[in-house]
């Protein structure tokens, strides 16, 4: 699908406005009706619109934050005096683990993701994100699962191993209770929910921008969210894989981390921090992006160094994947590699420096007004710069040997996260609240909130630098008298109470002054330059503006009025369904009008049951998990069957400016294809982690133990047989594609049903080969790693089977034809990926031990 040639003319800044006045009288009412929120008892459960889901998401993240703050106050109360007995050691250990886990997984990542879900469509002038039900599904799974996770604390079942859950402490022998499982399963699907959000955000940013909003004109917040989402795609698989391995070890005694059977506890640390360090920037970058939006509005001038900042965001994303070892300086890693990671850790501070100086430059070239958001920006600069400087300190190996795992680190990480994320988020809250609520939050209360939090946070955490260096390790439920720790701890506790007062006032402000009203009073109180300040409804902007600069509201006079009158693109609805404009990834030329789904129950039920599935698995109610799992999968299939791949509902859509676009596109231009490719990047990264697991355990065991005595490598005939089956399967998929092109959709369905057993047979044959060679998962890490591969391939067998049957059913039901083929395309891409992955898995199992020369 090539973009229409006329687009170039219609996008020129001197072209006439795309749509003339007067607009048809029923155009706007129709648009409003189609985008109306569900009413009555269906609200908010069936709601999918990003305005509502975004705010619910933010509110839920805020709730989890407040709960985690309460936990932190409990800890501060316990540590106020030495030898305190307010919390016993077991409760304390559960409380600090839950606090850290909630802040990272239930507050920080979801909050910035929610900010993206809420803001991005308006900022890019899209009607919604491309997959609203996916967002809603991710939100509900997160909300329900997160509450279930928090509740475990009341039963004494919360995890107690620290938020990075190092084995062997978290292995079955030392943590026999289900507390650790609550972390693994309870957080496991929140990771999945984060990935769902990331897919949505990547595709939304690259494909749903306003016409003319080239990458170089994209708001910096969108740049930040793009890097954020790409980082999630490559970082979260590592933690998912680490979670899978630990749960497999706990549930089935596969010794990945147990050294007496060839495992290595450091494997978990590498995987965890390969996620964990980027995680810090995953949290920080969107916040930095928000600051880059707020500062120009506050000082009424353009961002200085836009290009440098965009580059810095991308560079941070890259570099952050090269520093994970700086959390492991004390593990005895050779000093040469430590020097490398030390240098890489220094390097990442350069892009951050660029951003700080860009904000300073922007402030200097404008006229700052001390609105509440600006106060929070100043607070952010103060706290974050200090945290960044201690970050440079702990990047230095000898210093880190002292600071590591002490209260110095507790201070550092809170400075970075509170400074780098919470203050910008609050700045954003005070800045963007008018866009959601129609009016501003209280200036008076806002100033109080700022000063209480600013003083409270600094006085709570600064003393911790000192208590850490004079001998206080982190994660201690108490400390002895007479080490000089008393005064610093008392100061921290007292100041924590001050911060708590700030949080309380913030809640009062929100309760008094925040009422959702999308489409309510629309003005631009800070005279900002970007599109989220256009007059908005649930459908975002009435018509989708043609963009000619980075600051459209400053450079295109009357834009708001033109948009409101419907004089820009797509001023109503063409198909009578919810739609959004899809544009090209770099130049943002209009390509087609995508139909997007509206309110429904299926995704909500699926989300509830997904959360229910994982929670009942955790408490070992297998029958309940079975029910939840079945209902969840059924609901998802129903949702896909009824809500996706609708085909070309109308032939062409006239969006104005002479642009007539299709409403259905398949292949590499469709957003659905993009989403599948992004998902496969996630999948491939998990598989890379699997490969890393093999390589790491081999290195840790040495050639002689890989495989260990007693386990052989299966005869070469087996993998060759599997390969032949995989190749046959690929051939059949090719044939299926050919048949579909010829319009023989039912025959295609038949061929797909033929290909499926070949794939499953290939996987089964390999399982048999491994078993008959004497490889057992419980005896040695070699067997565990081999079976981890079997597990992963089996999971894909299951998914491919589901997808193949679904595809065949659609084909037989006449819902697939040579044009309407997105379902086919997506299944085929995934399937081909699974075939390639299975072949790579065969190499891991059969080639690697042979290549090492002992097989």
């Amino acid at each position: 699908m090539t973009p229409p040639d006329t687009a170039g003319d219609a996008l020129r800044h001197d072209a006439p406005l795309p749509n003339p006045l007067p607009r048809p009288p029923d155009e706007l009412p129709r648009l409003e009706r189609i985008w109306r929120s569900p009413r009555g008892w269906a609200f908010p459960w069936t709601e999918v619109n990003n305005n509502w889901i975004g705010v619910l998401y933010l509110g839920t993240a805020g709730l989890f934050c407040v709960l985690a703050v309460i936990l932190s106050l409990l800890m501060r109360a316990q540590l106020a005096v030495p030898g305190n007995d307010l919390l016993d050691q077991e409760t304390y250990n559960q409380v600090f683990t839950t606090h850290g886990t909630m802040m990272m997984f239930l507050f920080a990542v979801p909050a910035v993701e929610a900010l993206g879900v809420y803001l991005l469509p308006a900022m890019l002038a899209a009607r919604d994100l491309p997959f609203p039900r996916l967002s809603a599904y991710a939100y509900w799974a997160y909300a329900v699962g997160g509450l279930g996770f928090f509740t475990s604390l009341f039963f004494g079942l919360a995890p107690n191993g620290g938020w990075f859950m190092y084995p062997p402490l978290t292995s079955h022998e030392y943590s026999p209770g289900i507390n650790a499982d609550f972390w693994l399963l309870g957080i496991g699907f929140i990771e999945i929910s984060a990935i769902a959000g990331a897919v949505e955000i990547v595709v939304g940013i690259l494909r749903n921008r306003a016409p003319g909003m080239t990458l170089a004109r994209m708001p910096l917040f969108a740049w930040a969210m793009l890097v954020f989402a790409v980082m999630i795609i490559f970082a979260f698989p590592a933690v998912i894989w680490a979670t899978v391995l630990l749960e497999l070890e706990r549930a089935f005694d596969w010794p990945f981390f147990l050294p007496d059977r060839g495992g290595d506890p450091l494997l978990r640390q590498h995987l965890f921090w390969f996620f964990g360090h980027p995680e810090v920037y995953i949290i920080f970058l969107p916040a930095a992006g928000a600051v880059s939006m707020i500062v120009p509005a506050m000082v009424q001038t353009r961002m200085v160094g836009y290009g440098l900042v965009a580059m810095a965001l991308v560079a941070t994303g890259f570099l952050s994947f090269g520093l994970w070892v700086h959390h492991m300086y004390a593990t005895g890693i050779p000093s040469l590699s430590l020097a490398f990671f030390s240098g890489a850790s220094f390097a990442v501070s350069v892009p951050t420096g660029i951003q700080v100086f860009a904000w300073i430059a922007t402030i200097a070239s404008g006229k700052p007004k001390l609105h509440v958001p600006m106060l929070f920006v100043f607070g952010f600069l103060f706290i974050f710069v200090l945290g960044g400087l201690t970050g440079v300190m702990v990047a230095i190996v000898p210093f880190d040997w002292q600071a590591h795992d002490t209260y110095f680190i507790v201070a550092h990480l809170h400075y970075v996260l509170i400074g780098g994320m919470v203050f910008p988020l609050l700045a954003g809250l005070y800045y963007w609240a008018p866009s959601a609520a129609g009016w501003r939050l209280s200036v008076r209360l806002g100033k109080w909130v700022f000063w209480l939090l600013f003083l409270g946070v600094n006085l709570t955490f600064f003393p911790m630098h000192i208590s850490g260096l004079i001998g206080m390790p982190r994660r201690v439920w108490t400390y002895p008298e007479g080490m000089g720790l008393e005064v610093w701890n008392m100061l921290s506790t007292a100041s924590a109470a001050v911060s708590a007062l700030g949080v309380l006032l913030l809640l009062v402000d929100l309760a008094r002054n925040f009422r959702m009203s999308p489409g309510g009073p629309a003005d631009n109180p800070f005279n900002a330059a970007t599109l989220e300040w256009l007059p908005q409804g649930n459908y975002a902007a009435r018509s989708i503006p043609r963009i000619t600069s980075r600051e459209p509201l400053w450079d295109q006079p009357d834009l708001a009025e033109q948009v409101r009158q419907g004089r820009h693109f797509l001023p109503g609805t063409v198909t009578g369904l919810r739609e959004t404009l899809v544009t090209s990834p770099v130049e943002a030329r209009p390509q087609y009008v995508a139909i997007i789904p509206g309110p429904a129950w299926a995704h909500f039920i699926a989300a509830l049951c997904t959360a229910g599935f994982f929670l009942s698995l955790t408490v070992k109610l297998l029958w309940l998990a079975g029910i939840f799992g079945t209902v969840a999968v059924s609901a998802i299939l129903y949702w896909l069957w009824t809500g996706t791949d609708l085909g070309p509902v109308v032939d062409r859509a006239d969006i104005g400016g002479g642009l007539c676009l299709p409403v259905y596109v398949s292949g590499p231009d469709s957003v659905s294809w993009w989403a599948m490719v992004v998902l496969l990047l996630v999948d491939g990264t998990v598989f890379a982690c699997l490969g890393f697991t093999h390589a790491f355990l081999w290195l840790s065991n040495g050639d002689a133990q890989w495989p260990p005595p007693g386990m052989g490598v299966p005869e070469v005939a087996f993998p060759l047989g599997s390969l032949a089956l995989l190749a046959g399967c690929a051939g059949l998929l090719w044939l299926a594609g050919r048949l579909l092109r010829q319009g023989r959709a039912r025959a295609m369905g038949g061929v797909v049903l033929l290909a499926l057993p070949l794939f499953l047979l290939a996987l089964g044959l390999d399982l048999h080969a491994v078993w008959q060679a004497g490889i057992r998962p419980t005896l040695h890490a070699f067997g565990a790693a081999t079976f981890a591969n079997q597990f992963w391939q089996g999971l894909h067998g299951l998914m491919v089977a589901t997808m193949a049957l679904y595809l065949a059913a659609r084909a037989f039901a006449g819902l697939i034809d040579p044009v309407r083929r997105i379902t086919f395309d997506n299944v085929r891409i995934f399937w081909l990926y699974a075939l390639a992955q299975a072949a790579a898995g065969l190499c891991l199992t059969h080639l690697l031990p042979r290549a090492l020369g002992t097989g």
Partner: protein
Amino acid sequence: MNLQSAMHPAGPDGERIAALSWLLFGGGGAIFVLVMVLVLVAVVGGRWERRLLGSRRAIVVGGIAFPVVVLTALLLHTLGLARAIGLPLAGGEPPLRIEVVGHQFWWEMRYPGTLPDGGIVTANEIRIPTGRDVMLEVTSADVIHSLWIPALHGKIDMIPGLVNHRRIRADEPGVLRGQCTEFCGAQHAMMAFYVMAQTPEDFAAWLDQQRLPAAEPDRPILALGRQVFGAAGCGGCHAVRGTEWNARIGPDLTHVGSRLSLGAGVLENHRGTLAGWIAGSQDLKPGNRMPSFAAALDGQELRAVAAWLESLK
């Protein structure tokens, strides 16, 4: 006070790191103040300063050139320092080897080669001679722990299946404190130990004393204590060299009476606290691996076993 402080070093490596720390605090503080002043100037500065600060060039100078220069210099400096920390300190003499094994929630210290058939084993304290390099060879018997003696050096993780090394040296005789710094379970907070640096002569004398098997009871109550120790099954977990008990689950008690602390740096060590620990260890350090023996011993037996252990100097 200050027994466990990185800012009060008591050995050459600790001093190097403390000096580095002060350099970092000074430099970091200066940069912090500089940036905050720039923010202030950006807000309230004069026309000229603000125009200077508001340019793209200011970003390149402040955000790229400045950090690259400063951080490169810092990297070179710290790499040199890290290298120096790895080199032997005291010339000639090979370092004294001490193996330290982490357990939930206590420390086992072994001095290999100090006995014909191995070495003496002690717990929860490291005795070292002053002025000599000591190589700690650390590992763990269960979960990951981390050994930290801030006055002498940074921490080193104790990982099961792996032996890590940390070279320390103390200059002056004295007592220092160390603690576990990798969260290791319920009583992570109460897993501490003492380091006692002694003159080489005192250290040699201590070593000679430790080489001896446990003292024979010379009073009836001590004899009773020894008997109770066996009857209550203490020997199922503990070793006392020179007796029939040689289990390795809990600390070696051969010279327990000579140690500075009880329960891994938690209590002072004398017959009173010994009795309290034996009878109610779960009151004192809930979740530790030793059961409370109050139900198994009568008062006199408890007193006797405590007295006997105290006599094992």
